[in-house]
């Protein structure tokens, strides 16, 4: 099986393969241009008679369950990342596979974390063929150095759902770690010592995988309520002593930033939104869990309070600050995609207006719409932005793959996408002539906020007009770039090999860009 074939130029002008790990792939065609036809993928037809009438699906062990699910060479195994860096389950699957001498698995996580670093040894010994999902930290480094047998595939959260729904990825076995479950397989993330809030990233896996295994350390008698994942999709339930490390599950940055530079970014971003009329009574926003984004949320809340307004919904990543807004009546709803701290978990458990969502409702390309397109503003990060507002979130300027896409691509469809980013990190300018890896087309990136000025995408003539008389330092992106280069010096171009080690998918499943092997 070829990792990939020849490269062709896609609509973004980037060279991408048309065959990926032996399967055909479609080059990116432009935003909203790709319209697949046909019918969605479907799991095989199950028969109730094959499952225990008493509803008890508890298996002896994870190994037992995997064997019963027919674990064999070449399968695709999926996991979710709601436990973030406190996940104790994903590694076990591959330990077992390795012990059984199984080879060439494809790992299909919704995201990877530093705790998954030990997967590198299974990538090396052939237990895992390649990863499709995200390759963070050590796994990214491994991939960048060309050591992975197959081609890495990076997808957004919505893109992951899309790939499962249209059959691009077929999950053989989904292993879903669940903080609370019953013997039938109903489960949720709001109760139990490993409580993580919700399990939305595992929803597609539960519905589309051939076999589904629930792993829990908190078994309750039927019914497990709420049943965020339905036992009707589940084959086996495995009970273990401990499936996650609580203090690491809550590992998102949940404190507002103390850095004066980041606070300035946050303040300017909020002021920009206010002056541009983005904030209004009934508005909606999404800010991530990073320190800057959290501070922006707080500034938003202050503005709402001052005006006597409230948001209609705040899109989470939820955390204590968003929960405060909900409880103070500054937002009607939290539409939550993942819960970053215990306050978020508590709120989701107790408050019906703190709503559990999945990539299906928020991000999926094959839905009849999704709500990402009508969020008033999203605040995102980026490792690089180019002079045409194209942005990169997966590689650093030295070419190393270090981050996943997450919901980032999907969020770009909001009414106003703002990237508050420092103009340079240490000595490395963030605004480049061309991004190392294209993850988001510039037409969807509206505003760049840096500590030395704010650039508005020339396509957003409405915003430029509104900010004409602002006291904020509005500059062109070219001005910002030369300002950074005056301070840091003009960076040299890193050298890459022409060997592709991973691809970045766009939200519709087409191939947006290639990640190249780094040369040391």
């Amino acid at each position, binding site marked *: 099986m070829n990792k990939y074939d020849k490269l062709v130029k896609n609509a973004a002008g980037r060279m991408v393969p048309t065959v990926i790990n032996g399967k055909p792939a479609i080059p990116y065609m432009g935003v909203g241009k790709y319209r697949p036809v046909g019918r969605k993928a479907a799991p095989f037809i199950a028969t109730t008679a094959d499952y225990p009438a008493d509803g008890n699906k508890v298996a002896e062990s994870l190994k037992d369950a995997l064997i019963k699910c027919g674990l064999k060479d070449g399968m695709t195994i999926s996991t979710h990342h709601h436990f973030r860096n406190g996940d104790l389950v994903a590694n076990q699957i591959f330990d077992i596979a390795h012990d059984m001498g199984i080879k060439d698995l494809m790992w299909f996580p919704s995201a990877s974390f530093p705790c998954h670093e030990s997967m590198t040894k299974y990538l090396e010994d052939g237990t895992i063929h390649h990863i499709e999902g995200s390759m963070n930290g050590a796994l990214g480094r491994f991939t960048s150095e060309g050591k992975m047998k197959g081609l890495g595939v990076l997808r957004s959260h919505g893109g992951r759902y899309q790939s499962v729904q249209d059959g691009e990825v077929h999950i053989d076995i989904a292993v879903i770690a669940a903080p609370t479950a019953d013997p039938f397989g109903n489960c949720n993330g709001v109760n139990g010592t490993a409580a993580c809030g919700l399990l939305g990233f595992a929803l597609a896996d539960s519905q589309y995988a051939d076999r589904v295994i629930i792993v829990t350390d908190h078994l309750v008698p039927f019914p497990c309520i709420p049943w965020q994942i339905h036992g009707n999709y589940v084959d086996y339930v495995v009970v273990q002593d401990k499936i996650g490390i609580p203090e690491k599950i809550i590992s998102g940055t949940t404190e507002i930033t103390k850095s*004066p*530079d980041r606070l300035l970014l946050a303040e300017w971003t909020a002021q920009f939104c206010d002056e541009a009329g983005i904030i209004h009574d009934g508005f909606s926003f999404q800010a991530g869990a990073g320190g800057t984004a959290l501070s922006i949320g707080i500034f938003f809340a202050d503005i709402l309070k001052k005006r006597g307004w409230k948001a209609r919904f705040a899109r989470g990543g939820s955390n204590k600050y968003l929960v405060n807004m909900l409880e103070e009546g500054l937002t009607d709803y939290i539409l939550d995609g993942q819960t970053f701290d215990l306050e978020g978990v508590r709120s989701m458990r107790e408050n019906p207006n703190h709503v559990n969502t999945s990539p299906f409702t928020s991000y999926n390309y094959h839905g009849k719409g999704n709500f990402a397109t009508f969020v008033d503003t999203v605040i995102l990060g980026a490792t690089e932005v180019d002079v045409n507002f194209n942005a990169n979130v997966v590689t650093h*300027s*030295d070419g190393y793959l270090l981050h996943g896409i997450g919901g980032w691509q999907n969020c770009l469809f909001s009414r106003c996408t703002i990237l508050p980013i420092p103009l340079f990190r*240490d*000595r490395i300018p963030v605004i480049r002539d061309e991004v190392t890896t294209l993850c988001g087309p510039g037409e969807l990136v509206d505003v760049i906020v840096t500590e030395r000025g704010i650039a508005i995408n020339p396509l957003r003539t409405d915003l430029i007009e509104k900010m004409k008389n602002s006291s904020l330092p509005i500059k062109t992106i070219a001005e910002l770039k030369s300002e950074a280069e005056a*301070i*840091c010096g003009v960076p*040299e171009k890193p050298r890459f090999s022409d060997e592709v080690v991973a691809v970045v998918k766009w939200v519709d499943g087409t191939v947006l860009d290639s990640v190249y092997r780094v040369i040391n």
Partner: protein
Amino acid sequence: MEVITTGNKGKSVRSDCFVTLELKESGSNEFILESKVGVLYGNSIHKLVVEMLEFYGIRNAFLKIEDSGALPFVLMARIEAAIKKSIQSEKEFLPAMLASNDYSTAKDRNRISRLYLPGNTPSLMINAGIHKPDGIILDLEDAVAPDKKDEARYLVRNALRGLDFYGAERMVRINQGERGLEDLEYVIPHNVNLILLPKCEEPGQIENVDQNINLIKKKHKIKAPVWLMPIIESAKGVINSYAIATSSPNIVAMAIGLEDYTADLGTRRTTEGTESFFARCMVVNACRAAGIQPIDSVFSDVGDSEGLRQNVLRSKSLGFDGMGCIHPRQIRIIHEAFAPEQDEIEKAKKIVFAFLKAEEQGLGVVSLGTKMIDPPVVKRALNTINMAIKMNKLSENWRESYE
């Protein structure tokens, strides 16, 4: 030969580098670079090293740079410091003077906030100006460890030339005594706007510094003013505060440093500040009598913004015109709390309006109703208006709508 090191390294160190230099008897120059930005700047760092070794005529040396993303002016300072520790040389390897730093400051400009930056920590310097303090102090004195004081001079000098201060008054706090006089050589030729003199107790200290500054200015044909701000930090200094305040025409402000002062008194610094009430009043009085700005001590609890606000309000009520900051987050709070109150602004508007009207009508005397207004009152009202405009509490065109 001795192995020389300069700069900083370690996990928490950013935007700095650590230089190791060893001169050898023979051979050639050997250079090792370990840089986290090597992919993007490796060649340019290499070029800089070659140029600097050539500049100082060094042909047989082992040089290693462990770089955590140092900007060029930092690299230059660290390398030059290492070389100057190894050889005797009068030559300076200077970064270009930024055109945007070519400004001087007025004697009576606002000095409400002035941000202290340790003189040997580049990461804190780089973005200081974007927080818009009135002044930025590159500190060569207490904020620099004794064994780092020499190398800090090169960094501060290069920062004065190569780092954009975005219009803040460019200040340096020199050391006490002989070392302080030596410090002047490194900063006066590089367009520093103001020198802070620590632990002033007698007028002679200021006169001495002033003379040295004048000599350096003459040597380098510098016309721009270099203002002085003595800091009173002892009981003796407080007693001599008026003599100190009037010891040079270049003194534009005088500050009080309460950490050392309270230690000198043998007491502890409290939030309420009862123990320093006398000293603060003395300094304010001395400054007002001398016609310069009285500046209050820093507030050291960075996390306590409410405490800082209360402290500033007390300062303002005592008559101070400004305060030091040790963190950019304090700047806005200080500006807001020093800003004139609405009733002050209204009163000032009346006075200034009457003054401008009198001026237009060619009247020598300003009166409001039946009351005559003295020139100092007008001046103070003008200050209030200017400050209110600066703080966005009053429109620049307030007169257009003023009846």
